[in-house]
């Protein structure tokens, strides 16, 4: 625990105190601290991939065999029976610091999808975790004053993120599936800090209480996605998507006196992908895309944004069996740019090797897929953020017999 002397604000001391106040309160740019990837901007983007797609490098467009991921609305034309699926993705994270690393974890439900095909039509509804802003940090320090010396503990916490609720319509026209999706982006962010002072070291009867602050932001935006998908041959399916999102309105709805409203430009996105059955038991897939987040950074106090590319490749092999059931095993690799990073730092790139397997259960009514992603994101020296992570995704889907 260090001792910091803020001292009586006399003469030059007052100027120093005011300068420190201005610097610390207005621009909280971490130099090389324990900044988690969920801290900058709107947080860490969460791929809306089910465990099968996640295990195949996140290549979730045009995936033969279907995917309860959410990206291209036209991919709903791949379903012939009603289905419901949910994915959970707990993630263990090791945040690299100047002096070592610290472990933490994040739990998410990245995607919940329902699909109802009706003839050549397919209707879908989904709930998607778009970004994750959850993190917390605690620190200890000592405040030395003319009243006494007060050790304190401080906790800073962000709780929230951006989610979307989406309604999708898709139709098969000839050999081409076309889809359109309307999404409402919602969510919020709660920022808190809490400083708890112990009594004075010199005199335990002297206390200075606590200091706290809280702000709440509510998010809302509208998104339109359109896409096409086609089965070029029984073993080859391709898919493409284009997305437009209106400005995200971030409204400070805390009880604070100043209520602010921010308009955050949201990206135009496109993505292409497909899968190809190179052998009867081997499927390969690839997908990539771009999102123009670069114009989204102006609203943030300590973060910048940049355009991002992503690319994923994967394979699925159907040669194994377990207790008489087929056991498809999967592997892949992905490289994904994260749109937000600390100000004056380099953008953050995430890479991961992915693995997984799936199985039909309960007489084929339900399907369970699991994925394990081992990866890292950022570079401490360059981007101010560096994490290694192990993400486990588990998807459970049920299909109407």
């Amino acid at each position, binding site marked *: 625990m260090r001792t910091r002397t*803020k*001292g*009586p*604000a*006399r003469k030059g001391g007052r100027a120093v105190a*005011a300068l*420190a*106040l201005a610097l*610390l*309160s*207005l621009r*909280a740019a*971490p130099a*090389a*601290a324990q900044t988690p990837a969920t801290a900058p901007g709107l947080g860490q983007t969460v791929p809306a991939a089910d465990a099968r797609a996640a295990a195949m490098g996140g290549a979730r467009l045009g995936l*033969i*065999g*279907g995917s309860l991921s959410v990206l291209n609305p036209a991919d709903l034309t791949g*379903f*012939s*029976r009603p289905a419901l699926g949910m994915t959970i993705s*707990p993630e263990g994270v090791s945040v690299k610091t100047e*002096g070592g690393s610290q472990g*933490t974890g*994040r*739990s998410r439900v990245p995607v919940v999808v329902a699909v109802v095909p009706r003839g050549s039509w397919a209707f879908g509804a989904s709930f998607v975790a778009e970004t994750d802003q*959850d*993190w*917390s*940090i*605690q*620190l200890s320090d000592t405040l030395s*004053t*003319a*009243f006494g010396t007060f050790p304190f503990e*401080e906790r800073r*916490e*962000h709780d929230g993120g951006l989610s979307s609720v989406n309604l999708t319509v898709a139709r098969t026209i000839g050999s081409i599936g076309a889809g359109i999706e309307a999404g409402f982006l919602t969510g919020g962010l709660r920022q808190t800090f809490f400083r708890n002072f112990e009594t004075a070291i010199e005199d335990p*009867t002297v206390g*200075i*209480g606590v200091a706290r*602050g*809280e702000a709440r932001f509510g998010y809302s935006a509208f998104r339109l996605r359109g896409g096409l998908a086609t089965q070029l041959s029984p073993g080859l399916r391709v898919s493409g998507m284009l997305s437009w999102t209106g400005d995200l309105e*971030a409204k400070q709805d805390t009880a*604070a006196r100043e209520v602010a409203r*921010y308009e955050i430009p949201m990206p135009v996105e496109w993505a292409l992908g497909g899968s190809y059955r190179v052998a009867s038991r081997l*499927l390969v897939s690839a997908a990539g895309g771009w999102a123009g987040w670069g114009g989204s950074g102006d609203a943030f*106090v*300590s973060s910048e944004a940049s355009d991002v590319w992503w690319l994923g490749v994967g394979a699925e092999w159907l040669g194994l069996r377990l*207790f*008489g*059931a*087929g*056991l*498809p095993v999967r592997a892949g690799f992905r490289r994904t740019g994260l749109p937000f990073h600390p100000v004056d730092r380099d953008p953050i790139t995430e890479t991961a090797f992915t693995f997984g397997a799936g199985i*039909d*259960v309960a007489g*084929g009514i339900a399907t369970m897929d*699991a994925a394990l992603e081992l990866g890292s994101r950022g570079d401490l020296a360059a981007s101010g953020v560096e994490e290694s992570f192990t993400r486990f995704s588990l998807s459970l889907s049920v*299909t109407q017999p």
Partner: protein
Amino acid sequence: MKATAAARSAGVLPGRAVSLLAIAAIAAACTETPLEEVDPASAPGQSTPTVEIEIPVDALPFWRDTAYAGYAIPATSSLRLLADSADLQARVLGRVFNLPDSILVTDTTRAVERFDAAFFRLLVETGDTVFAAGGAEVEVFAIETPYVQREATWGLAADGEPWTTPGGDLGALLATAAFDSLRDTLVVPVVVDADSLLRSWRSSNGEPGFVVRVTGAGTVLDVRALALGFEASVTGIDTLVSGFRTPGGATMLFDPETPAPGSALRLGALPAARIYTSFDLPDTWDDVPIRGSTVNRAALVFRAGPSEPAPFTLMSTLAVTAVQLLADPFVIGPKTPVGLTLSSGSVPLDPEGLGETGGELVVPITSLVALWAVADPDSAPALRVGLIADPEGGALGYQRLGSSSDAGLRPSIRMLVTPRVPFRLP
């Protein structure tokens, strides 16, 4: 999912077994634990430092201070000094009333036939007593001029009525005793006819009273209790019956009299003095916002002036408490109503601890300033504070403190302030 079904084997696993696997996997899900940071300046997230500021009162938008005296006077104080020193002359006045004309003895009320003997008994606080090397004599005189208990001073028997001789007009010597050493109980026998004296006091309700003085150069007796003892003959029994009466109408005369405070600030003294202030705070000070901020601690800081000469040198520690004043003390005056105390405890005013001139007396007023800071400006409480020393009037000594007119010793307001965090999107 037509394609899924086709892509996978027709074989299946029991749902229960896989469910158990799923539950185990979820149970292993990672928990979100906070990261530990060592450097607040580089930690992520928006925060705000807790800043110490100190504002001299001449930099405040408004400040007035004064010392009012009279909250404890010799008549109401427990301080009773008998002194015969170069610095201080002090005497005690009193009246003995309620002397009995009958006494209850073993369930029978018996008439007092005669007061056979009488004496004054003084219980002395030996720790605060200075006894002359050559001994001291305690004398009790009849007082010739009636006095008013709450108005009598060394020079006055009552408002506008001076003694013929300052210090009380001494009449007949009633009791006397010489002591060559200090003891905690001094018995001074009545040397006149006890029966006639006590009958006289009984019939006159003690008027006009008596005065106790000590002679013996350098003697200062701190008398904690004074009583008249007597032995009386009563009807029907042969033995004498003894009794005690505590004098009423007691007060103390002393010379020199306590100087008036004037524009100086003081705590202590007799008559007891309090410090009353009224002030306003700026919304910001050196770019540190005060209004709207969390005030973690606020205190009035007074600076000691030079020690007073004897006999007004503060010798013992006073306990100083800050109270909220419920009206403007510069309109209402000394009788300004007093509200709640502004801190959970008192602050010791230790004359030795203050040290040289400029030593600080720091009196917390956090609750008042904290409320002011977060209240709407139109409904914020007025910043009016009184400082009360306990015990009030327990000693002649007092501590002078710098006022707003004392350059170099001006009070100030010291605060620990945590400004509101101007949260923005991260």
